[in-house]
Every structure is written in structure tokens, then in C-alpha cells.
């Protein structure tokens, strides 16, 4: 039997993706576009939050949306287009997440210099999107009350990588066993001081602070 030699490697397995993510970030920065990566489990309200955001900010800023979906359906992109906002649909072909290469192809379909804000709606999933950087400026999770208060404990990697947490459907708090203190403790353990917006896309409660934060971030990028 032949002798084997050990060759040290020490290379991150997702390094190729991370490099494309850096390329995407440079494209966005050069064009002065502020870009969000919106993640959530299916049904948490990603699309509702995006539609609210568009309805409120479309008169102030030039916005586009990139929609990631696992199936070739354009339901979400159609809702965005109905508001007169450019929407690019990326069908991941069954893959459970967007990756940096898919986003790169989405970016190529937009005129970035004509935009202030780009919203990327990731595939509904709390595991896989956390592992794949896209090159966007902020990772945002839309959690929702009916999902239960244990999600930070069950999906630690998702909560660790966030810049902003939106807690949607707070109008359902009286009807659901959701212990906000337990939920927030899990978030704090994983991501101390995480910027958090509790809100309801149904009633509109709490939407204003979210919009104010977006305005401030877009303004900061323009200066």
C-alpha cells in the first residue's frame, strides 16, 4: 500500500460564494445602492413587509426588488410589478436559498445606477440562507408571532448572522402562546443588542420606525 502524504488546506468551504458576494458588494457600493437581504420562514410576512415598504417609500426613492423562489412562480414578483416597481424573479430551481452567484445574475438585469434601494427577498427558510452571503448590506430576518418563541434557540445560525430583526404579526400576541421575554432572551444570547422592529403588516402598527430606519440608512449612503 502506498504511503500517503498529508497536505494542509484550511480553506473555507463556502469561500467561492463569499468571493462572489464581495464582488456584488462592490457593484452595489459603486452604484450607491443600499441593499437588503430579507430572510424568513415561509409565511412570516416577507412579501407583506416589502409591499408595505414599497407603498410607503416608492414616492421618495428609486427602488427595485429581486425575488428568490424555489419554484417558477411569479406571484411575489407580480405583486411588486403591480406597484410599478422593477422586479426581477430568480428561480432557484428547487434550491433552498439564494447564493451570491444567483444574486449576481439578478443584479445584471437591473440598472443599479438608477436605484437608491434594492430589496432582495430570499427563499423562505431559516437554515440555508444563513450560510450563503449575498453581498447585500444588511441581513434582515422577519420572524412572526405564530411561529413560536423558540425559534432563536432552534435556528441559532440564522439569528447570529442578522443585522436587523423584524417581529411581524404582533397583532396576534393576545391569541397565541408566545413568550416575548423568552424569545428576546434567545435573540440577545446569540446577537447582543440586535436592532429589532416589532410590527404588524396587518394593522400597520410599528411600521413607521422601520421606515425611518430605512430612510436614515439610505441617507447615510448618499453622503
Amino acid at each position, binding site marked *: 500500500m*502506498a*504511503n*500517503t*502524504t*498529508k*497536505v*494542509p*488546506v*484550511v*480553506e*473555507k*468551504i*463556502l*469561500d*467561492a*460564494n463569499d468571493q462572489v458576494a464581495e464582488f456584488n458588494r462592490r457593484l452595489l457600493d459603486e452604484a450607491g445602492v443600499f441593499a437588503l437581504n430579507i430572510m424568513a420562514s415561509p409565511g412570516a410576512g416577507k412579501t407583506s413587509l416589502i409591499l408595505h415598504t414599497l407603498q410607503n417609500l416608492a414616492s421618495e426613492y428609486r427602488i427595485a426588488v429581486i425575488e428568490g423562489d424555489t419554484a417558477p412562480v411569479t406571484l411575489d414578483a407580480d405583486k411588486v410589478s403591480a406597484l410599478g416597481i422593477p422586479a426581477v424573479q430568480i428561480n432557484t430551481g428547487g*434550491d*433552498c*436559498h439564494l*447564493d451570491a452567484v444567483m444574486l449576481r445574475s439578478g443584479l445584471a438585469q437591473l440598472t443599479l445606477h438608477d436605484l437608491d434601494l434594492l430589496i432582495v427577498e430570499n427563499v423562505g*427558510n431559516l*437554515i*440555508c440562507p*444563513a*450560510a*450563503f452571503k449575498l453581498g447585500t448590506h444588511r441581513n434582515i430576518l422577519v420572524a412572526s408571532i405564530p411561529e413560536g418563541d423558540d425559534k*432563536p*434557540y432552534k435556528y*441559532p*445560525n440564522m439569528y*447570529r448572522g442578522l443585522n436587523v430583526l423584524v417581529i411581524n404579526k404582533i397583532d396576534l400576541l393576545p391569541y397565541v402562546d408566545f413568550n416575548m421575554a423568552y424569545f428576546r*432572551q*434567545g435573540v*440577545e*444570547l*446569540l446577537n*447582543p443588542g440586535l436592532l429589532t422592529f416589532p410590527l404588524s403588516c396587518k394593522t400597520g402598527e410599528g411600521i413607521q420606525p422601520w421606515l425611518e430606519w430605512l430612510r436614515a440608512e439610505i441617507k447615510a449612503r448618499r453622503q
Partner: protein
Amino acid sequence: MHELPVTENILSIALKHAQAAGARRVTDIHIVLGKFSSIVDDSVQFYWDLISGGTICEGARLHFQRLTPRMRCQDCQHEFEVSGEIQPCPQCNSLNLILLSGDEFYLESIEIER
């Protein structure tokens, strides 16, 4: 759920380093994996057997070193392992923790025949 693209990356990194080292065959691949990194070893092995066929990595054994997450309390400096659900500092109950390790995911080394 994303083990196929992950396995493709493992193969491409292993082939790159094996070729650079003048390997005739790769016999073993050592992967370091933090428990927070949500990768299923068995799925990677399944895809590996499918996609490594016909390359110099065919038949290589995959070894997974799983790292238990470790946290440090920023208030009392206590360091501890997280074996189950994350929890406040077991010594002082603080929530002010940082993760020292547990989300690693890299290819540590390969063993080759020349």
C-alpha cells in the same frame, strides 16, 4: 438542505490542492464543522459518492471533526460549552455572551498518494 453545492465546493477545493501537490489519488479528506453550521454529514457523504466518481478523489474517505460551540461571558469571563439549547451564563446568568467557536466550516487537510 444545501449539501449538494457544499459537496461540490469540497470537491473543487480538494482537487485544486491535490493537483497542486502532484497527487495521483486522494485517500482522505478532513473537514472541520461547528455544530452551529447546519450541515448533515450523511448527506455530504451521499453526494460525495455521486460526484467524486471519475476524479482522483473517487473513493476518498470524508472525516468530519465536529466542534462543540463554546461561549464566553463578557461580564464574568466564564467560558463554557453549549451542548444543548443556548442559555444564559451558567455562572452569573448574564446574557452578554460571545461565541468563541461553533460555526466553523472548512476543509482542514487532505491525504494524498503521489
